């Protein structure tokens, strides 16, 4: 380097280095944009396929007619109803326990071995294949009760909801500034009241997002329901009897040889995806509103 006394040559080196860095920058940012397009490309492709194949069954009758035998027209009313009932019940069971357990992790067991173990186990539960949970609930509920039931289906889904809610509650409570805790505690407010009235209120949007994400995840579950809720070709609101659900109907119809069933399967799949999209947008709207309020 020192062998180049010429200022012009030095400038030329700097110029070429500058150009190389700029080129590198453009290249990297270009690749980043390409990666995003890559991700969006699959989304559009998959949604387009679903819409294209399901369009012939996308009619109002989808929502008020029962699942038909092959070759006849019908809808998915009983399946939509079953999915909604089981999902809501799963949320109702999984959310309170999940929030409490998440509170335990974030507020009551910082750096204790019990808390770390639960957090670790919860992470495994988060990525456990759902069919395994289905088998577990089958041995726990279906076999002793002697019949398949919507209730068993809801319990299985609750096991999928639980770890998601635990994790988000844990994370969200940790994000609440500790000044808030200290301020409330220094006023002599008991810890449980601080948790319920200060921390929960502050972490609420995040927790709601977690619950909605859990709902999105269970609305597409097939394998664990097949051995717990089974399915029902008729309208049934009996939680002690087999209950229909959209993913199981989609699975069974998709695997059949009949065109009329195929289009119902794709239409059902499209509705599930739209539902998940709606949930995700609602969740984002809540978080966005919250951010505006904070600023």
């Amino acid at each position: 380097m020192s062998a180049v006394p010429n200022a012009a040559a030095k400038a030329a080196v700097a110029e070429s280095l500058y150009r190389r860095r700029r080129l590198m920058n453009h290249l990297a940012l270009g690749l980043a944009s390409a990666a995003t397009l890559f991700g969006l490309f699959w989304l559009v492709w998959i949604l387009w396929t679903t819409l294209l194949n399901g369009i012939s069954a996308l009619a109002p009758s989808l929502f008020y007619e029962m699942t038909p035998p092959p070759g006849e027209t019908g809808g998915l009313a009983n399946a939509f109803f079953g999915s909604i009932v089981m999902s809501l019940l799963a949320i109702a069971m999984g959310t309170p326990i999940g929030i409490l357990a998440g509170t335990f992790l974030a507020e009551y067991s910082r750096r204790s071995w019990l808390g770390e173990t639960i957090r670790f186990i919860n992470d495994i539960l988060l990525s456990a294949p759902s069919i395994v949970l289905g088998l577990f609930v089958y041995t726990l509920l279906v076999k002793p009760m002697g019949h398949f039931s919507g209730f068993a289906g809801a319990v299985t889904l609750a096991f999928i909801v639980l770890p998601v809610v635990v994790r988000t509650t844990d994370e969200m409570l940790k994000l609440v500034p500790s000044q808030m805790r200290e301020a409330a505690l220094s006023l002599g407010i008991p810890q449980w009241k601080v948790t319920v009235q200060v921390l929960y209120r502050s972490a609420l949007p995040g927790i709601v997002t977690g619950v909605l994400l859990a709902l999105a995840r269970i609305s597409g579950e097939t394998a664990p329901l097949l051995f717990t809720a089974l399915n029902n070709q008729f309208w049934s609101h009996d939680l002690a009897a087999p209950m229909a659900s959209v993913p199981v109907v989609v699975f069974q119809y998709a695997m059949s040889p009949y065109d009329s069933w195929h289009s119902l399967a794709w239409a059902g799949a499209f509705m599930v995806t739209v539902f998940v999209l709606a949930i995700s947008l609602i969740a984002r709207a809540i978080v966005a509103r919250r951010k505006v309020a904070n600023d």
Partner: protein
Amino acid sequence: MSTSFTTRIAFAGIAALAAVSAQAADITGAGATFVYPILSKWSADYSTKTGNKINYQSIGSGGGIAQIKAGTVDFGSSDKPLDPKELNEAGLGQFPSVIGGVVPVVNLQGVAGGKITFTGPLLADIFLGKITKWNDPAIAAVNAGLALPDGLITVVHRSDGSGTTFNWVNYLSKVSPAWKEKVGEGTSVQWPVGVGGKGNEGVAAYVKQIPGSIGYVELAYALQNKMTYGAMQNAAGKVVQPSRESFQAAAASADWTKAQDFYLIITNAPGDASWPIAATNFILMYKQPKDAARSKAALDFFKWAFEQGKTQAEQLDYVPLPDDLVKQIEAYWQAQIKTG
């Protein structure tokens, strides 16, 4: 705030559970995927006629056997019959419900449906990986005049355990000693070669997508997907096309009267017109049920289906049971299954 909201939902859920569990339960059956379309059709029609609801769900034959044994359903269904000893140990009775058939399907350019012929040993050798090319002399020998390409054969089999596989390999075991020794028979076997598709639909999709492939599906899938199916040389040495008639002929040629608990697999059936890979689906029920009224309701449904449901079965490419067999089944119900 959120907790009080969720508790309210939880209470509403529990209240709903308590309120509705008094409702009369419908009859539940589960098992083979093969009969799911026809049972769903029969059940829908039966429900409009009588108001009784029979809910049948496809969870696979093995699932059907396991669930009836666990007592979680009112009847199970399987494409693979249980032998009388096993039935006896479990306290179960067994009877046929409907007949269908498995057909070989191929993806060969320039070959139309039913124009290529296979023999049992030929199929066994292809699925064993002994015959690897379409222009193999063994294939040409039974297909004189057919232009066979000089291409590799890709075998497509089921990846999931299934009754379709059971009937297919049961037939191959009957006609090929090499198959019987190396692979054997079951709802899923250790395939020497090939790729596995999930369900009939998966096999159909793979065969349609892979040039030079051969697979096996139930007739309805071959017809609905407009696939190139093969003809078969049957036990009598005649070449037959897969159709309701040849399936029916196979069912009729089988001697059901000597079969205890209808334990009979009708592959490689005798008779000039018989399709060699015809298949029967079986229903499993308790002989001494816990709730006799529920078993009676299930049997009433099958009686109606056997007598009034023939057209529906034919529309969906199934073969309804021959009348003699239905009479025999009804006598079996009388003698064996307690209904009140």
